[in-house]
């Protein structure tokens, strides 16, 4: 079990220069190939945690391990780390340096010292992965907000990371753009890339993630499989998070005898599908409905 961990935080604390505490005795593990949601309110330490995973901040106490060995904060060590762990910040306006989409995406691979042909190939591939091939020649300031976000992701993907860190990627996107971005993320997971995504949306975290890490006040309150979330009411409450609406609904319907206790739906769309599928009095629960399905572990 332990050796399937890609990254591990061990009792990490971080105190900023101004004396405020960013992280407080935080421990968690990121499994290889998994989808992780860092769930917490604004100011709970999500961004600070992401900055630690990419080596941009160093723990004031505690340690971080990658593949079981401690992070190496030498220059070469950091270069190696950031090649493996890519970070996409929340605001595109603060991380795109060049107005040319193609140029900006080439920045990371060039910093890896790759030759020109390889860089061109990687830029093309990264732009294709986020569906921005057509926009390669357009200037960044002509793109929509959602497109800019995707360019930011391409800029990190072109470095071929094993782990992708995303800070509030859904913020500011309308439902259509959110769906497009989710498809991009699904394709990345299918390619074996691990993802850590910071969010304050418990419904989204429950629907999307394999593992949920709950943060509040700079502390890692709990880490659990998303499927186990229904059992984590107390932890969610402590972190100021509501129960996902779909779970509350499912429970009410179980109490009313409309749906069986198992399986637990992942989102409202799935719940609706089940309601439509199993007419009153004739449950056919053994057929698994489409979509990602939850079952209590």
């Amino acid at each position, binding site marked *: 079990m332990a050796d399937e961990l890609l990254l591990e935080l061990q009792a990490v604390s971080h105190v900023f220069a101004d004396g405020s505490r960013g992280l407080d005795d935080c421990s968690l593990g990121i499994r290889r190939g998994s989808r992780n949601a860092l769930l917490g309110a604004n100011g709970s330490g999500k961004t600070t945690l992401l900055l630690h995973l*990419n080596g941009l901040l160093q723990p004031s106490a505690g340690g971080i391990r990658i593949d079981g060995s401690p992070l190496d904060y030498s220059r070469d060590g950091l270069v190696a780390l950031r090649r493996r762990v890519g970070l996409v910040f929340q605001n595109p306006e603060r991380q795109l340096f060049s107005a040319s989409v193609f140029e900006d995406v080439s920045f990371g691979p060039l910093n890896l010292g790759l030759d020109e042909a390889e860089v061109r190939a990687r830029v093309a591939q990264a732009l294709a992965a986020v569906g921005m091939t057509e926009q390669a020649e357009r200037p960044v300031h002509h793109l929509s907000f959602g497109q800019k976000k995707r360019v930011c992701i391409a800029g990190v993907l072109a470095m071929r990371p094993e782990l992708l860190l995303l800070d509030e990627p859904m913020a500011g996107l309308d439902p259509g753009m959110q769906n497009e971005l989710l498809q991009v993320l699904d394709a990345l997971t299918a390619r074996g890339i691990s993802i850590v995504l910071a969010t304050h949306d418990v419904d989204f975290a429950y629907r999307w993630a394999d593992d949920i890490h709950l943060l509040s006040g700079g502390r890692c309150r709990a880490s659990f499989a998303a499927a186990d979330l229904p059992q984590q009411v107390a932890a969610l409450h402590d972190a100021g998070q509501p129960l996902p609406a779909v779970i509350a609904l499912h429970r009410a319907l179980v109490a009313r005898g409309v749906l069986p206790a198992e399986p637990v739906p992942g989102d409202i769309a799935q719940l609706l599908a089940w309601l439509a599928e199993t007419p009153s009095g004739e449950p056919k629960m053994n057929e698994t409905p489409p979509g990602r399905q939850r079952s209590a572990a």
Partner: protein
Amino acid sequence: MLIEQAAYGNRWRRVSPAAKGSLALAGLLAAFVAATPATAACVALLLALTTVLGARVAAGVYLRVAAPAVGFLAIGSLSLLVAVGPDAAGQFTWGLAPDAARRVATLAGRSLASLAALLLLVLTTPLPDLIGLLRRLRVPEVLLDLMVLCYRMLFVLATAVRDTLTAQSARLGYASLRHGWRSLGLLLANLAVQIWQRAQALHVAAVARNGGGPLRFLSPGFANAGRDTLLAVVAGAALILFAVGLG
């Protein structure tokens, strides 16, 4: 910015910047070697027609972009037309300058031809392509970095300025002249503070992608760059010969 829009939307968008740069350079040289004002005017006309008909830049856009510079030319010419100063007797006089027409014609011909050469380049070539060209011409890295950042951030800051101006207007910040000055001061001060915050965020973002030193980028390639550049050099040479020969 009209130039910006034309640069991305013209027919020569995908022509190698080296080719367009060579032609513009030849245009500048032709403007300066033109033997007579009439020749210079012909050079200006040829370059303008090339931009409008060849690259399909809208004539209206072309004229609006050229207008401020032409205004400067008009004011400058005006001061050349009038001569002031003490005459032989030491009396202050003013009147039409001797030889004024010839001097103004020379100046106008040269200025308009050079302006047309500049516009040929900037109305057909987006700035990132020009920076790419300067990169190939071995311009110091420090200057290139400043250019890349300046170009990217000027749109971000321009949006910030526009949004803040709108927000201030919504709260009556420009309802009177006195309030207007106060609002503008607040706006600029706020923007100045953002310079540090944005720079810090960009630096962290660069470090996250293994950067932090000189910014390195790869520009997209241009098809037929060699052929187009050769063509432009030939056309440019012909233009210069025309400017010299006709005089």
